[in-house]
């Protein structure tokens, strides 16, 4: 645990991942950023926003460390709103570390995770939801996630939530008006007005809440599980789909050991593709059924691709999988280049997709079928509509939604006067305020930044 670092100090971090690379970027922000860089590079130029080549030396013994490119930013026109510098050094394990050490010696402090963005928030460069979006953009594993995060960075979600909060406040104001002006000309407040306004709000919150399912899907990807007997070509299908879907991540963090995973884009949808093929270490595998997939994956699947390289094996896979999952099952006739029964299986109630991992034939059709299933379940992807992508968001909106329903129930059957039931409205407003960071900001900030990487 650390106290919130002050602005008075200048922080530095290597902003690129460690390891072999052509270049690595070191960032500094704070009041002494320029002064500190000036102490380690010769020549030093403070021309704003123009990169120049210089020499970076150890400030103690003057030994040359690297010849980097330096770019200088002057606050408030910078990411953090403070004076900043970016130093592009050569990559690898040694140079960036030596360069950072030189900057520390010259007076900088190593940044905490997310501290750059935290400073951007503190300096009024972005709000909380936007700061979260920065993290999400960095972590984006799919184009859909990237889109959603960009929208959030643009303030889309903040605007939507703020508008909802305003509407609840208006309803509160209506009730307050009725209490405060009992003798006015327009007479007592018609209960119908409250009922209509409430119903409208519940509906709006409902539709925002509904985006959380899509949001979650966007964040984690729809789980598509490949199942089938050994040696029917599941791994080939896995690899072919990765190639087809231009996988962005194939080494997902937190990957369980019983499956290979890849995050790919299937049309508009991010898909987490799971292949359990060839992995027999877990006892969970349904080997007695002759199917390589664990019960666990079948339960979590959004779609199951039941594979077989013959009609018999395909039928077997479909039958055995269908009884064990609630997800739609797509039959996939693998090794399509060898298929001879095309005509007969095309008459199945759910006609299998004939795919050749070898030639790529049928991959487009399979991709289309997956999209059809996902659209059926989650509706059309609406671009640029704000999404609730985090549990924190869903929780706050769900609470507000529940409070409005409580309000409706409390006063509508006359159990509680509307003046008292209005307490529910205030709780609902509070939940939304927490979300956009009006109160409880400390706690929220702590949570938001705890998941950040260093250097952002």
């Amino acid at each position: 645990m650390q106290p919130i670092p002050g602005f008075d100090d200048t922080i530095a971090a290597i902003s690129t991942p460690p390891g072999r690379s052509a270049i690595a970027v070191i960032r500094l922000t704070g009041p002494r950023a320029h002064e500190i860089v000036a102490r380690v590079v010769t020549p030093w130029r403070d021309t704003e926003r123009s990169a120049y080549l210089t020499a970076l030396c150890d400030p103690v013994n003057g030994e040359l460390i690297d010849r980097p490119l330096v770019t200088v930013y002057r606050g408030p026109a910078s990411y953090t709103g403070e004076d900043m510098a970016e130093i592009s050094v050569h990559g690898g394990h040694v140079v960036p570390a030596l360069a950072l050490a030189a900057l520390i010696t010259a007076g900088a402090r190593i940044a905490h995770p997310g501290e750059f963005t935290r400073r951007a928030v503190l300096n009024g460069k972005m709000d909380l939801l936007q700061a979260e979006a920065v993290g999400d953009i960095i972590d984006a594993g799919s184009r859909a996630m990237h889109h959603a995060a960009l929208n959030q960075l643009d303030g889309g979600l903040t605007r939507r939530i703020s508008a909802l909060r305003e509407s609840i406040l208006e309803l509160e104001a209506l009730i307050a008006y009725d209490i405060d002006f009992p003798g006015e000309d327009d007479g007592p407040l018609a209960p119908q007005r409250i009922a209509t306004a409430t119903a409208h709000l519940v509906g709006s919150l409902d539709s925002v809440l509904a985006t959380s399912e899509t949001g979650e899907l966007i964040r984690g990807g729809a789980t598509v599980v490949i199942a089938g007997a050994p040696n029917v070509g599941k791994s080939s299908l896995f690899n072919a789909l990765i190639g087809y879907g231009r996988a962005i991540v194939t080494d997902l963090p937190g990957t369980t050991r019983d499956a290979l995973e890849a995050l790919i884009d299937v049309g508009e949808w991010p898909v987490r593709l799971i292949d359990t093929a060839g992995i027999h270490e877990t006892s969970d595998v349904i080997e007695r059924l002759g199917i390589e997939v664990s019960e666990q994956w079948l339960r979590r699947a959004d779609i199951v691709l039941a594979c077989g390289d013959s009609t018999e094996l395909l039928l077997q896979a479909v039958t055995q999988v269908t009884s064990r999952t609630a997800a739609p099952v797509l039959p996939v006739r693998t090794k399509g280049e060898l298929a001879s029964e095309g005509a007969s299986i095309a008459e199945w109630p759910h006609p299998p997709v004939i795919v050749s991992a070898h030639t790529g034939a049928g991959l487009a059709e399979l991709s289309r079928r997956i999209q059809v299933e996902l659209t059926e379940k989650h509706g059309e992807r609406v671009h640029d509509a704000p999404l609730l992508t985090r549990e924190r968001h869903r929780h706050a909106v769900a609470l507000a939604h529940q409070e409005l329903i409580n309000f409706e129930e409390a006063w509508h059957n006359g159990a509680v006067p509307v003046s008292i039931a209005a307490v529910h409205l205030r709780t609902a407003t509070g939940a939304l305020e927490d979300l956009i960071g009006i109160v409880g900001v400390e706690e929220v900030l702590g949570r938001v930044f705890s998941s950040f990487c260093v250097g952002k």
Partner: protein
Amino acid sequence: MAGAPKSHHMSNELDLDVIVVGAGHAGTEAAVACARLGARVALITSALETIGQMSCNPAIGGVAKGTVAREVDALGGIMGRATDLATLQFRMLNRSKGPAVWAPRSQCDRGLYRRAVRSLLEQHPTLHTVQGTVARLLMDSKGMQVLGVETLEGRRFGARAVVITAGTFLRGRIHIGSDTQIAGGRAGDPPATHLAQQLEQLGLTVSRFKTGTPPRIDGRSVDYSRLERQESEVEAFDFSWSHFWNAQRRDVHGKTRHPEQMPCWITFAGREVKQVVQKNIDQSAMYSGAIASRGPRYCPSIEDKIVKFPDVDRHQIFLEPEGHDTTELYVNGLSTSLPAAIQLEFLHAVPGLEHALMTRAGYAIEYDYYPPTQLDSTLQVKSLGGLFFAGQINGTTGYEEAAGQGAIAGINAGLRALGRPSLVLGRETSYIGVLIDDLVTRGVDEPYRLFTSRSEFRLTVRQDNALRRLAPKAIELGMLRDPEVAAVDGRLSDESESITIARQTSVRPSEADALLKLAGASPLPHAVRIAEVAKRQGISLSDLFAAAGVGSILSREAVMTAELEIKYAGYFERERIQADKLRRMGHLALDPELAYGEMRSLSYEARQKLLAARPLTIAQASRIPGVSPSDLQNLVLETHRRNGLSQTCQD
């Protein structure tokens, strides 16, 4: 130096702890509060006969205002007692909206009210009343500390603190139509100009507001057959707890202390009135440009109503009796600054008033006020030690708002004079707390009136529990006498006992079924705790007590409060949790010297507003208009950073 005494050798006629200037609803409460603290206090007014004058409508109470009247009463004030002695019609507003928002209001006999106030003041041995017009404040040589006052008549009084409650008198100017302007603080009374000049020279920012009154008519000229009659509610209601303290319950000997009740009359301003006003709008002082200052949105003139709401066909008018000793009626709803002849013309267009004789013309009045962000939370002027402001001088409107400020300014002036720590009421404790917090942190851009919607604590801050909320503070400060303290304790323990009895006693089906049937509720399956049955809709706790034969000696008001606490416990608890949250936020102190100008994380507007208001807590900052949620966020973080308190950044 502007405020320096002319002669250092002239001696003071009296040396006091506190001087209160002005004897309206703020001044009288301020003086009484000082006296109750044991301070020696002089109440100086230009005419002793007008102490406690109701300058506008003859009524005390209403939504939020009624609660303030009871809060002032719980602090030992006189507004509630005077109302009980002068009431001629009582109504509980919002009766249909649940007891949590009930709002008591009494029409009063102006003469009885005035006399009651003066005699209540004179019961305090350390309180002197002085007739005189204060010409200037006496200041120390540095001009930083108030030492007393000097009157136009040449009398000097020394004091450690001065409370100014000048109402609409500072440079007051009365407008009747666009051509008639009279210097005056109230119809028939001269304005105060010397003091106004000195206050401005002392460096205080001054601004102007306006307010208005309607014409009054002779009741003998009214055709009552065309009016709707509104009777007083039968149930007797007391604003003040003091009657219990004196053991003078209204039912003693079957006699009531309230004067005989009188009806009000309802009529309306319809199309014809609208035509008269529209035709003559250019002669209105407010619409011709003669008055530039802002008036209250919530108490609009008939010109305002007609110009701003042209589609409304009818505006309600209440004819309110001025007293038992006169037939004069106050025409509530027709506030105006049109010329007298036009006023008569539209009066005659009102059903029932076709032949009305106008006793007094309505008028608008413009007056100085001092933007209250120049005050701290004790209502002391930030830049001048010992100088306190209360009432309309702070840009508020309403008798009750004035009285609430008067009580707090008086208490703090007294405490300061006696060298004791000050008293600040939190928003969660009272409407007075909300009022003062709003004034000193947000300021005013129109005459400020209280509403329930200004408070976050509509349910827990109610008219029925003012005593529990504030009397303990008055007791702590030593403001209540022993028998009063005993009476407060008795009343509050009645309340606790009601809740205990309700929780511990069961009522049998045979006892409760008649009641339940009446309320349309299902009968009891077996004996059930009273507290459980009382949660049902339409079942009163006192009826249940009567049915079960318990709690008959408990005060009726105490049982009613207990009923609310039982019925809506969950809701009240929620509001209390919200209050706690706010209190925690309130405890996040802001350094008054904070360099807002340098905080780049705040918007430009927020920096300006925070520099002007210099809030003491985050909670106060949150209520300043122009300070956005994200400004607030950054302020919280900035504060944590400076205090080095936070531990949320995890490595």
